[in-house]
């Protein structure tokens, strides 16, 4: 069994044909993590015993010939902003270093029901705020393709784990590109579903009108399988939509229907300032899409250039509200603060001052500013109106085409430390991913070709953006693209 070649569908086949047991595969992953993660830093915690137990249960079911879900025994990484009951859940922040989750996130509950195996919790930028996984309160994660470079972020631990064969797939969250950008940097597939497609109950909130749960996997097919198991409405998240997706076409796309889709190329995403290898890679992807027989059209999304400012006003505003509850009282505090502070006011100030890292503090202050008296209309209210225009752009484009193809990032993975001193330059690298979140659309990042760790190449990705709740379109196009490799 070659972990590098293993996919969710080939794992299931091998399991049912008894070519290997779930326990063997789980142990193989755990030993790879033990040997290799010191260099990468993808995991914050590992559930060795629980993972082996769950895998053994699946093997027992295989022996008995019981029915198995599509994800039975599949070893997964879970970003550390998902709650798994009774386990430490930090969101990458010192302020939650002693927090144990008191319930399961809805997606965790679904995955437990499906018999998926959780290998461990993966590293992230603090509260999912960052594009490099350098902002974690605990460790820096490195890109498996070149350990001097970042894996992207904020789901950098999950992306690195899939790329390094530490997990077969992983859960992530995407507020402004946090799944798609690390997927592109690490050469794996990353799906950010439609806003409302997956319940977010039990995901630690960052910016609630933008946050979406999604996943990192090796192929578009694997992404479709994992997505089909975790999607769906839920009473615990009133922004989630019940029965909005057609699971049958998601899992078994009709090639004829997919081929009839028109692909749009938005001019505004091919601007100066992108690195040559990235531009070449995306052009290569467009050529391949054309050679598969897809009709390709140029479209306009005129407000694209305003998306970054809009995003970096709305997101911190919501961050400042969501992170207000971390005050040293409602969640376990920081021992060094608690021991030395007697006044409540000091407890708030010191817990939040010491518990939040520099980027979290910056975003809370920025959010406080744009929401404050006298500036609310100029910044926050203005940004909400521009957000409406950005969404209208997409609506107009989707009257002409079915799927949009764009770059994911202007550059490939940058060096560790390269952008930490200049937050604005870090923010600018999100230019091609944030419009999707502002409009609530689904998007899939795929590697232009197959990248193998150790080849010395920097992966380049491209992005397929779909209509709301039409994940089947982008995953279908993605599967045809991969099939032509």
């Amino acid at each position, binding site marked *: 069994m070659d972990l590098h070649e293993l996919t969710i569908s080939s794992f299931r086949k091998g399991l049912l044909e008894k070519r290997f047991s779930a326990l063997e595969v789980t142990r193989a992953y755990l030993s790879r993590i033990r040997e290799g993660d010191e260099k990468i830093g993808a995991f914050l915690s590992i559930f060795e015993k629980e993972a082996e137990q769950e895998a053994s249960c699946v093997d027992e079911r295989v022996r008995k010939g019981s029915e198995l879900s599509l994800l039975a025994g599949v070893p997964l990484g879970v970003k550390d902003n998902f709650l798994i009951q009774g386990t430490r859940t930090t969101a990458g922040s010192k302020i939650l270093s002693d927090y144990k989750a008191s319930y399961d996130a809805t997606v965790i509950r679904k995955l437990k029901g499906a018999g998926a195996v959780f290998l461990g919790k993966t590293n992230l930028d603090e509260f999912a705020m960052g594009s490099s996984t350098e902002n974690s309160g605990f460790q820096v994660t490195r890109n498996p393709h070149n350990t001097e470079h970042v894996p992207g972020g904020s789901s950098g631990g999950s992306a690195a784990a899939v790329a390094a064969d530490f997990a077969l797939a992983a859960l992530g969250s995407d507020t402004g590109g946090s799944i798609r950008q690390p997927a592109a940097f690490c050469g794996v597939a990353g799906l950010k579903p439609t806003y409302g497609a997956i319940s977010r109950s039990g995901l630690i909130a960052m910016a609630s009108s933008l946050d979406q749960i999604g996943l990192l996997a090796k192929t578009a097919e694997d992404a479709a399988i994992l997505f089909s198991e975790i999607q769906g409405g839920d009473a615990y998240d009133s*922004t989630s939509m019940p029965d909005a997706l057609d699971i049958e076409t998601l899992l078994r796309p009709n090639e004829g229907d997919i081929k009839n889709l028109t692909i749009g190329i938005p001019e505004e995403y091919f601007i100066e300032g992108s690195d040559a290898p990235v531009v070449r890679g995306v052009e290569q992807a467009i050529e391949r899409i054309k050679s598969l027989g897809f009709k390709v059209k140029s479209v306009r999304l005129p407000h694209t250039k305003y998306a970054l400012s809009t995003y970096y006003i709305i997101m911190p505003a919501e961050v400042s509200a969501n992170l207000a509850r971390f005050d040293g009282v409602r969640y376990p505090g920081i021992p060094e603060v608690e021991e030395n502070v007697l*006044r409540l006011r000091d407890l708030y100030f010191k817990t939040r001052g010491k518990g939040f890292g520099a980027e979290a503090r910056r975003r809370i*202050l920025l959010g406080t500013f744009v929401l404050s008296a006298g500036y609310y209309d100029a910044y926050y209210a203005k940004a909400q109106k521009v957000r409406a225009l950005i969404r209208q752009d997409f609506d107009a484009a989707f009257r002409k085409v079915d799927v949009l193809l764009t770059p994911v990032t202007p550059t490939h993975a940058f060096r560790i430390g390269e952008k930490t001193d200049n937050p604005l330059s870090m923010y600018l690298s999100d230019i091609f991913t944030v419009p999707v979140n502002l409009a609530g659309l689904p998007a899939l990042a795929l590697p232009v070709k197959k990248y193998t760790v150790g080849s010395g190449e920097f992966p380049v990705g491209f992005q397929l953006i779909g209509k709301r709740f039409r994940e089947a379109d982008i995953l279908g196009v993605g599967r045809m693209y991969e099939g032509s490799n």
Partner: protein
Amino acid sequence: MKKAARCVRLFNSDIAQRDEVVFLYNLPFFGYREGVLERKDLEKLAELARIELPRDEENKLLRDLEQILKHFDELKEIDTAKIPPLTGGTDLHNVLRDDEAAQSLTGSDIAPDQFPEKHSGFLKIPPVFE
């Protein structure tokens, strides 16, 4: 203090003075004008957000925030006078359910189990009354 006192007086008095309330709401807290954020503005923000800032970080933070706010100025180019704001991620409205008892998210003893400190049946938290 002065501002708070004025608010109280307004809210207690005639509703006809509402315009003045709106005016108060629009009164800027900060001195931020045309790209200059001052140290006292940063202190005010930190006060509102209940965050103690490390002294040695303040200058850099000021510069970073100024640079970011300056970038936002590009939004002024767009005429949004007739555009209704997009206030959330979905078009869903009024998601309601029947008022029926159902299984709660977790058993009643699970949340206390995760509490860091307990003392003879009580959950221990920092003092919140002064």
